[in-house]
């Protein structure tokens, strides 16, 4: 680690190992374009802007497509487009990805839509899309020489980091709000890493993690000092949707927002596919979904502003409860550039939407999925989203992790004695 910390100014000479992260060639600042060598850097030394991975792709078009299609049945089929070392598929990791794209005809009918798909990322190993970002972060962390995997988390990331570290045989340190859903706390703890419950909200923990990361040079905080690599994992959601649709882009997508990184990277994935000649260029609109109790990006969008004012979150959608979303300004850019919108929905609407998706499609989403479905419904009502254009919504997490959210509004139809008479008396036939 100590050697790579100096790599931004002096490329490795004196026999120090060079960093091989496949097609990734540098980090570049999203704000001012300043470039640095690959390393454990995340903030621009010139302007504090976020650093992002810059690539030189080895191939494009037919050749690339053939390589992808011949690749493994998980996110590593996209290795030629990710900051991961060659041979990544053969190192121990939890291999997320290639989750189902489910045609949601019943929900579409109920909402008066023509063609609706649910990209169901609850099918990942720890049941959220966070397995994707962590898999890429873990690969980068190893290549950069870190020995501990860490994160501040709203819950799903905690699961993903603890599981990935367990599989990789390294230590994990995870910081979560102490008032998190029990299911997320217990499942994270089961993987055996260090789990710290912090009395504070996510933004407090995020600040603490930033401070710890500055002191513990051996710790890869996946979403802090390894963030540029980590965030790239979300591109695979965009790639997979395009491949699953037969190598083309949908017309509209609805994506939940916490930090906003996922939304921004799905758009980046679509853009790259066009640039690489893997899909034809076709216009698409990106819509963002937030819970009203934590909707700083929706507020900025509606006010026509390009700065996002932080808020103190108060919503049942705890996985999305980031009051100070670092990628908020870029979400606004993407949504405005593509002609989409950001909308927010009440907690009651979230619960209704969880039940709606479960009842119509047999998909049990966590609160983030509820936010997404409820936002879809609201966007249809306001006319922002076209019911006749093909739409993909992203279900990013599993309802089993947020059971409390619906515990008071669902239950058995009847409770009876184990007799046929009781069954008949209950009026069930």
């Amino acid at each position, binding site marked *: 680690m100590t050697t790579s910390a100096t790599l931004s100014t002096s490329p490795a000479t004196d026999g120090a190992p060079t960093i091989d992260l496949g097609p990734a060639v540098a980090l570049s600042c999203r704000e001012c374009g300043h470039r640095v060598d690959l390393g454990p850097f995340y903030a621009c030394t010139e302007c504090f802007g*976020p650093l992002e991975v810059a690539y030189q792709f080895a191939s494009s078009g037919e050749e690339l497509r053939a390589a992808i299609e011949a690749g493994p049945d998980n996110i590593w089929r996209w290795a030629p487009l990710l900051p991961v070392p060659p041979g990544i598929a053969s190192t121990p990791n939890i291999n997320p990805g290639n989750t189902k794209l489910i045609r949601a005809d019943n929900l579409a009918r109920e909402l008066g839509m023509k063609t609706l798909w649910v990209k169901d990322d609850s099918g990942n190993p720890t049941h959220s899309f966070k397995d994707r970002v962590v898999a890429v972060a873990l690969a980068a962390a190893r290549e950069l020489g870190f020995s501990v995997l860490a*994160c501040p988390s*709203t819950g799903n990331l905690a699961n993903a980091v603890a599981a990935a570290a367990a599989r990789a045989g390294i230590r994990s340190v995870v910081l979560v709000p102490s008032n998190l859903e029990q299911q997320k706390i217990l499942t994270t703890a089961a993987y055996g890493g260090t789990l710290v419950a912090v009395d504070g909200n996510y933004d407090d923990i995020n600040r603490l993690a*930033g401070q710890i990361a500055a002191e513990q040079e051996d710790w890869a905080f996946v979403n802090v000092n390894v963030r540029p690599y980590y965030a790239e994992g979300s591109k695979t959601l965009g790639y997979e949707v395009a491949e699953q649709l037969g190598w083309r882009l949908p017309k509209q997508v609805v994506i939940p927002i916490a930090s906003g990184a996922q939304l921004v990277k799905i758009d980046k994935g679509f853009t790259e596919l066009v640039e690489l000649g893997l899909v034809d260029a076709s216009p698409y609109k990106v819509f963002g979904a937030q819970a009203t109790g934590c909707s700083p990006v929706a507020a900025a969008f509606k006010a026509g502003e390009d700065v996002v004012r932080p808020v103190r979150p108060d919503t049942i959608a705890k996985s999305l409860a980031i009051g100070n979303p670092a990628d908020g300004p870029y979400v606004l850019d993407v949504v405005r550039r593509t002609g989409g919108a950001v909308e927010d929905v009440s907690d009651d609407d979230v619960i209704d939407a969880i039940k709606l998706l479960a009842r119509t499609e047999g998909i049990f989403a966590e609160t983030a999925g509820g936010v997404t479905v409820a936002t879809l419904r609201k966007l249809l009502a306001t006319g922002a989203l076209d019911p006749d254009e093909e739409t993909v919504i992203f279900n990013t997490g599993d309802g089993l992790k947020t059971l409390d959210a619906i515990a008071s509004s669902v239950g058995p139809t009847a409770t009876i004695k184990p007799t046929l008479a009781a069954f008949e008396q209950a009026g069930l036939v």
Partner: protein
Amino acid sequence: MSVTVRIPTVLRTYTGGQATVDADGATVADVLADLDTRFPGIAGRVLDERGVLRRFVNVYVDEDDVRFGDGLQTVVPIGSTVAVIPAVAGG
């Protein structure tokens, strides 16, 4: 010196590697101005050309984000800690 300032890694080139430095000032703006007299150029990293906080930097007085307070005019009590931290994405 009235307050402690925590310097993020990306700014430690200005402070000769020091992670914390002392400073004087009644508000965040004063503290940054004071720092800049001893570590010339450091304020220009935190503030943009118009003199406002850059959008990817967070400044905290003790536990509180100054954007919840009065921004650069947020009062910095004697003995408090000012932390400058790059904004980070989450999950």
